[in-house]
């Protein structure tokens, strides 16, 4: 199973975007999505059956059949064999979060619904095998999963309850923010280095012709 999903370029979902802070769609985007949902809902049931759902995901994502059916079973929480707009909206948010590399933020902001989605049996606990089955949804690597259960299984029952899961989301969010900060600092460092090099070149050339030093403030 490929970990990174890509939306089909130029597809309708490809043009949507999540609010980066709350990881939700804007009202305008939801309106468009509702219209799109109604176009797919050929039977006018306000739902999509498994055939329509499969072909929709097959068309717009790079997931294979197994992954699509796992997602369908996860979203069909009433076991009706159909997906309503609420579940469809949730799915689109997950897809967009993955597309825009906002998985950590998404799980942090929506820890309760994500927990309920992963808790297939309704036992208010998530086992490692469940998590592993859905790691393609949230791009969680095996190593991270092992650390997760090692560090956050406070009760020691080899499963995560909601509080433990919430701690995990806070921790991953902190890690994500640190990573962002490190990348920003790295970029800033590169820019400063480039500036210094330029200044040095200018100094050298001016020295050669005029014997003048240029200070940083002038540049």
């Amino acid at each position, binding site marked *: 199973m490929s970990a990174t999903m890509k939306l089909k370029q130029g*597809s*309708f979902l490809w*043009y949507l975007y999540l609010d980066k802070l709350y990881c939700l769609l804007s009202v305008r985007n939801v*309106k*468009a999505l509702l*219209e*799109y949902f*109604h*176009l*797919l809902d*050929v039977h006018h049931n306000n739902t999509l*059956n*498994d*055939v*329509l759902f*499969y*072909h*929709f995901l*097959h*068309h*717009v994502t790079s997931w294979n*059949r197994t992954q699509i*059916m796992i997602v369908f079973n996860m979203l069909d929480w009433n076991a009706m064999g159909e997906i309503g707009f609420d579940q469809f909206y949730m799915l689109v948010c997950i897809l967009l979060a993955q597309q825009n590399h906002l998985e950590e933020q998404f799980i942090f902001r929506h820890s309760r619904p994500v927990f309920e989605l992963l808790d297939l049996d309704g036992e208010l606990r998530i086992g490692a095998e469940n998590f592993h089955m859905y790691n393609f949804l949230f791009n969680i690597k095996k190593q991270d999963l092992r650390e997760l259960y090692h560090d956050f299984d406070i009760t020691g029952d080899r499963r995560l309850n909601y509080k433990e899961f919430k701690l995990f989301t806070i921790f991953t969010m902190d890690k994500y923010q640190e990573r962002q900060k490190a990348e920003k600092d790295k970029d800033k460092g590169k820019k400063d280095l480039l500036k210094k090099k330029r200044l040095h070149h200018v100094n050298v050339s001016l020295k050669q012709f005029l014997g003048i030093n240029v200070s940083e403030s002038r540049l």
Partner: protein
Amino acid sequence: MEEKPFKASLGSHGSDKSSPDNDIRNLWTRATLSQPKLNVPRSSVGENSDMEGGGIGRKSRRWYNQKAGRDSDGGWEEWDDGEDKGSFKQEDLNESSLLELELRRASSLGSRLGEDVDSVTDTEMSSSESSLSISKHTPHRAYWMEQQNRLPLPLMELMENEALEILTKALRSAAPLLGRPCSCSLP
């Protein structure tokens, strides 16, 4: 260059309509004075804003509700029903006469533009500004309200084409299984 479009629009659109629709349809045709590039289909005429008055606003709201509720595909045709035209005329004479006055002012400003090409710079700026401010409040309100309530056409086209592709594939995969006892419906 701006002269031809508005002259053409006055000429071509203004003459065809019968009197019950004249007031409302003229709002759209004379609107091209200030925004000559505006291409609005004739069938979109009539959606005046709620701000202009209860009568027109109520009718347009009803039309919007019909369209939004997807009761029928004939949303446009339902508006064209003669019943509506009559009630427009009775209820909204005052509103339409006010609008007519404003539009006549706009058209006189526009005609001045057409006649005097040399002094175009100052007159054009002031007239376009005033006609813009007038037009913002009158016919274009209906246009902007329609834009706010509907999705943009390119987006609709994209969605429809994509949905059509998906549904065609779904039908092709499910067609061989239709009529058989259901065991597995997926390809």
